[in-house]
């Protein structure tokens, strides 16, 4: 009996909340495993490739970034890493007096605060619409909304740069057709960042949509039927049935989108070089310039850690906020 439960875990069952694997080792496991002895050797053998790569390319660099952030690591130290000097908290204190960095931090925040809710919201709306019975076109729509996700951000940024071109671009062409002139989106301090945000929403909402679709399918039909029999309008149904039941998905989507958006780099790199007047300079772009144009690697490492701290804080906050309401 226990094993059948186990095997069902992978497939979305009728409970709505499927948590495959979370309980492995409980159920059937303990008694039999006790009998069969512990599989230490194979366990570690199977873990070792991941662990070796993880240690080399993640654990060591994470620690190294932290160490480097307290040093004046520069170009000469790439050849001779151990001659670098510790400078204590200097990089961090300098960071918070660095106008450029503070601007970058603000811009990144702006991008996330506006971009994430819009992406999640657009994805959710698309998913709900798609899930409300649109017949055969469903697949077609799904493909259409998801297509930007699979394309390279660099290519997409190149395309959008031209789409937004004030002279020969798509938008300006459309505007001209109806007798308007379009602004120079990427050349304007006020509009450059919103333009990048719109592009990011366009590119990423597909992911959110597909995840929400999966979540929606986990909502049992009976619940909906019941709501409808009670005379709930579509909006009411959405608010009081769909949204609450989608909270776990929403949590996942928001966290993942936030992490991705906080690292925004390609868009300003290709479209604006951080301008005009640093209005699209993001932390990752600033870090890249400090770290790889001027090889202020210690300083860039401090930037990386500030960003990482922000990511951790926001993730934890989101987990907290959204999880509390789930139960």
């Amino acid at each position, binding site marked *: 009996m226990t094993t059948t439960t186990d095997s069902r875990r992978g497939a979305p069952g009728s409970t709505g909340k499927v948590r495959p694997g979370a309980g492995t080792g409980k159920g059937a496991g303990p008694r039999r495993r006790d009998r069969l002895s512990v599989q230490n050797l194979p366990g570690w053998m199977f873990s070792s490739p991941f662990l070796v790569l993880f240690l080399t390319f993640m654990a060591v660099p994470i620690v190294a970034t932290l160490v480097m952030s307290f040093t004046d690591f520069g170009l000469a130290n790439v050849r001779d890493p151990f001659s670098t000097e510790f400078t204590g908290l200097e990089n961090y204190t300098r960071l918070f007096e660095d106008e450029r960095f503070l601007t970058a931090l603000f811009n990144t925040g702006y991008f996330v605060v506006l971009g994430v809710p819009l992406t999640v919201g657009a994805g959710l709306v698309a998913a709900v619409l798609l899930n409300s019975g649109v017949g055969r076109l469903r697949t077609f729509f799904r493909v259409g909304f998801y297509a930007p996700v699979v394309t390279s951000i660099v290519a997409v940024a190149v395309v959008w*740069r031209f789409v937004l071109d004030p002279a020969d671009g798509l938008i300006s062409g459309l505007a001209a057709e109806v007798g308007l002139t379009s602004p*120079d989106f990427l*050349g304007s301090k006020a509009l450059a960042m919103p333009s990048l945000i719109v592009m990011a929403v366009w590119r990423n909402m597909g992911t959110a949509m597909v995840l929400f679709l999966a979540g929606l399918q986990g909502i049992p039909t009976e619940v909906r039927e019941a709501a409808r029999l009670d005379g709930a309008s579509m909006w009411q149904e959405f608010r009081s049935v769909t949204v609450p039941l989608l909270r776990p998905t929403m949590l996942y989507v928001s966290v993942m989108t936030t992490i991705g958006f906080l690292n925004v780099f390609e868009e300003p790199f290709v479209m604006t070089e951080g301008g*005009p*007047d640093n209005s699209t300079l993001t932390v990752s772009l600033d870090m890249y310039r400090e770290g790889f144009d001027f090889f202020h690697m210690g300083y860039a490492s401090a930037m990386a850690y500030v960003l990482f701290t922000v990511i951790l804080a926001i993730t934890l906050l989101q987990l907290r906020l959204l999880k509390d309401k789930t139960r």
Partner: protein
Amino acid sequence: MQPIPRIAAATAATTALALLLTGCGSGGSEQASAKDKQTLTVWGMGEEGKHLAKLGKEFNEKHSNITVKVTPVGWDVVHQKLTSAVAAGELPDMAQMGSTMMGEFIELQALEPVDEKTFDKGDYFPAAWNSGVKDGKAYGVPWYVDTRALYYRTDLAEKAGVDEPPATWDDQRKLAKAYKDEAKAEWGTYHQPANVGTWQTWLPFLYSAGGQLLDKSGKPALDSPESVKALEEYAHYFDKGLSRKSSPPDYDVVKDFGSGDAPMFISGPWIVNNIKDQQPQLKGKYATAPLPADESSTSWVGGASLVTFEDSEHKAAAKEFQKFLTETEQQGRWYEMAKSLPAKKAAWDEPALKNAPEQLDAFEEQLKTAKTVPPLAKWEEFASKIDEGVARISQKGESPEKAAAWMQKATQGLVD
């Protein structure tokens, strides 16, 4: 410790040390001679990189054992790529290196000194040769020199009622305004407003105002009255809507010059070629002129040298290729191909230069009085601060005084 293990340990240590030394050192023992069959890897930059590949092929026809592989790298990324390659120790054999980058790479000890018996200092313009000299040693063979002058549309100027090149800053302002108001051009001129390389357009203003990058004691002089004046002049064009306040990362002024949207700009001699290739209809409709003067009409000397990297194993072949590229006759041809001005004095007597299109005259003229950019180990960073300082007046709308003070503060730690 027992004697034998001690010996073993000593041997091991020595071997390790030896391996380390051969690994990190110049690898002198592995030098290929100029006669060996080999591939010479060369990084070329921007416009010149495109043409260099052709010369590499010609060289290979004469020296069948040496294949030249030219990799063109964009100017925007070349500094980052070269420094990163130095750091990683993964360099090509030789490269074309912008004169302003020499200081940094000499400091990094990445360059092989020039064999001054083969390349004679006296053959080259002193400004070009000296950009690659440190402590009496030369590290680059000057390849070409360039400087900045003014390009303007004569047909549109006529339409706007102007028939003479602008001689002073005042004239330049008037022409820009006339282009916009009378000739109905989108902009009056193009002054690069921000991003990498903005300093190249602004520096002529600083020099013409009588300013300097560094004062006599070697400290930045970016908050001098002259610097403020140069910034003020530059800002005028943005304040009055005569020059665009931002441009896309791959903005090519030649395109807007051709369409008449930007009928005036400041740039180097290679643009003559670009106009011929991309905007052939402009023939006879544009001219060049020496920079409009304030205190004087003073531009800056740029250009590039040919450098061999210290880690290269093909130094002899690199020398052959450099000899080939700097032959007097070849310099004349190079000028024909890339419109790059020869760094070798004798080449100016070549027919190609004698019969140069008139647009080149302004550059020749300008070159006589042009000043150098001081060699700085942290030039790129220094330059990026100027870029940002100029962006402060063009895009942030900061006052020239404030921007000048900012530049001064930002560059203070970058000179030593």
